[in-house]
């Protein structure tokens, strides 16, 4: 049964699953070897590793279960992500505003899952793209119905930013599941964005250089940033099998979107956290902080990649 499941699965999903298993096992061996050789206390590293050990199987489980499970999983991440943002800003205390955004995110997930009633294509593209119109209209109507004005602009504005960024922009990732190349797109993005983060960290430590944005994120350097961009530009060529139909300019654009967009996403969450005066957006994932601290780069990259693909290749 297991064997037939494995054989009937998408070859790209199989390849990435195998790669993830190999990566997790070798990372454990590497940490173990380093701990043994240097005799340093690596409990912090192990904590982070354990976080991955939980997140990676969950992500793959959703992908193996198929399109609907993936959409539901991504919508849950968006809801928890918005909740973290709402708790960090204080919007969460307004349950009507928060609930409206939850409903909006749920609507996005449903629109992603159903067919367009006119064309019969998977995913109701037109209404998905127009959802912010209705959610923003609903949010702005709340103070009117309440007949209240004090502090209302702030909570409505924050809720709009939260819905558009953490809900709508992020869930472009979910809409990618409507493509024949869903596994290639999604898995490439997940891997590329993480590798972009990791290489920024490694190049930052080894090459260094002047500070990238001293106020927003003082630990990041130009060396790390450019190193990550180089890695991200090469990656689409190395993993070309994820999207064999891509031409050279799409590969370059993918590299630029991940390399630059990923870092901008990271820095976006950084400035938000600094303005709010908090360290992490939450504490759901031990060793990683909140869910938004984990998917920060992905949020920024997802819609840019989506519309690039749609423009050149169409989404189905």
């Amino acid at each position, binding site marked *: 049964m297991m064997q037939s499941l494995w054989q009937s699965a998408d070859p790209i999903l199989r390849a990435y699953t195998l790669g993830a298993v190999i990566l997790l096992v070798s990372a454990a061996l590497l940490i173990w070897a380093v701990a043994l050789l240097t005799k340093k206390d690596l409990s912090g590293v192990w904590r982070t590793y354990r976080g991955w050990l939980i997140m990676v199987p969950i992500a793959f489980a959703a992908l193996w279960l198929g399109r609907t499970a993936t959409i539901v999983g991504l919508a849950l991440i968006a809801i928890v992500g918005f909740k973290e943002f709402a708790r960090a800003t204080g919007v969460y205390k307004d349950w009507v505003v928060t609930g409206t955004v939850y409903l909006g995110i749920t609507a996005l997930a449903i629109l992603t899952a159903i067919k367009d009633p006119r064309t019969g294509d998977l995913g109701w593209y037109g209404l998905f793209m127009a959802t912010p119109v209705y959610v923003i209209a609903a949010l702005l109507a709340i103070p009117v119905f309440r007949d209240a004005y004090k502090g209302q602009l702030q909570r409505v504005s924050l809720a709009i930013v939260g819905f558009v960024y953490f809900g709508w922009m992020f869930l472009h990732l979910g809409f990618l599941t409507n493509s024949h190349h869903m596994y290639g797109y999604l898995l490439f993005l997940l891997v590329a964005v993480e590798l972009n983060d990791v290489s920024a960290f490694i190049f930052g430590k080894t090459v260094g250089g002047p500070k990238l944005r001293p106020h927003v994120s003082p630990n990041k350097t130009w060396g790390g940033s450019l190193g990550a961009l180089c890695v991200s530009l090469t990656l689409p060529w190395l993993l070309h099998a994820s999207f064999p139909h891509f031409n050279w300019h799409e590969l370059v654009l993918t590299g630029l979107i991940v390399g630059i967009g990923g870092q901008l996403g990271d820095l976006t969450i950084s400035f938000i956290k600094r303005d709010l005066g908090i360290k992490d957006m939450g*504490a759901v994932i031990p060793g990683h902080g909140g869910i938004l601290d984990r998917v920060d780069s992905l949020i920024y990259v997802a819609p840019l990649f989506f519309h690039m693909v749609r423009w050149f290749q169409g989404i189905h």
Partner: protein
Amino acid sequence: MEDWTYEPAQDLNHDFATRLKGFPREPHMWVYALRSAAAMLIRGWLRTYHRFRITRLGKLPESSFVMVANHQSHLDAPCLLAAMPLRRLHRTFPAAAEDYFFSNLPRGIFTSIVINGLPFNREAKGAQSLAVCRELLSTPGNVLILFPEGTRSPDGTLGRFRSGIGRLIEGTDVPVVPCRLIGAHDAYPKGAWIPRPKPVHLIIGEPLRFGHLPKGRTTVQTIGDTLHRAVSDLKPESNVDPPI
């Protein structure tokens, strides 16, 4: 342009276990929904399985107040919560011994989500926890449920009241409502695994106030004695049962 002031949740970077213990709790939409649902289930179960009745001799104050009762069983806190209107449920906090009710994760989840328990540290005479209680009562509309005996009675009789209640109330005009639970010991005594289908009866007395007494050790003693007498004086036959 003026900067916005944000109000991040106090427990933002706490892990799950720490958040359960943290107090005051941040209001949480999903927790409120769960607690309301659980409260209705518990009320239904108490009424059918324990034929739970409430006799109200006085009206509950609309302001913040303290409910004190005899402590015989784990049923006590759910019974007292069942006497509160649902709209005040999330602002009613039974003091729960931190060393017992927050000692492991499942218990902590139950205590904080279903019971809305206030983690009460019984060490050092509870001085720190009493400060938390005082803070709680300073917000209008909050209700604190306290068992002044400090622990469940092993045989169902009313034990000595600890000084905590007196030290909490002295020098304030916070109303205290004495309550008496009858039958909870037979229904679910200390050490029993599952509750037995025995009737439980709750009598809610008239609110008492101690604001006129000067602060001091004698007042602490007086408050404790007065409340002890008030609780033990509540008798089942003292009034006809109004409908719940």
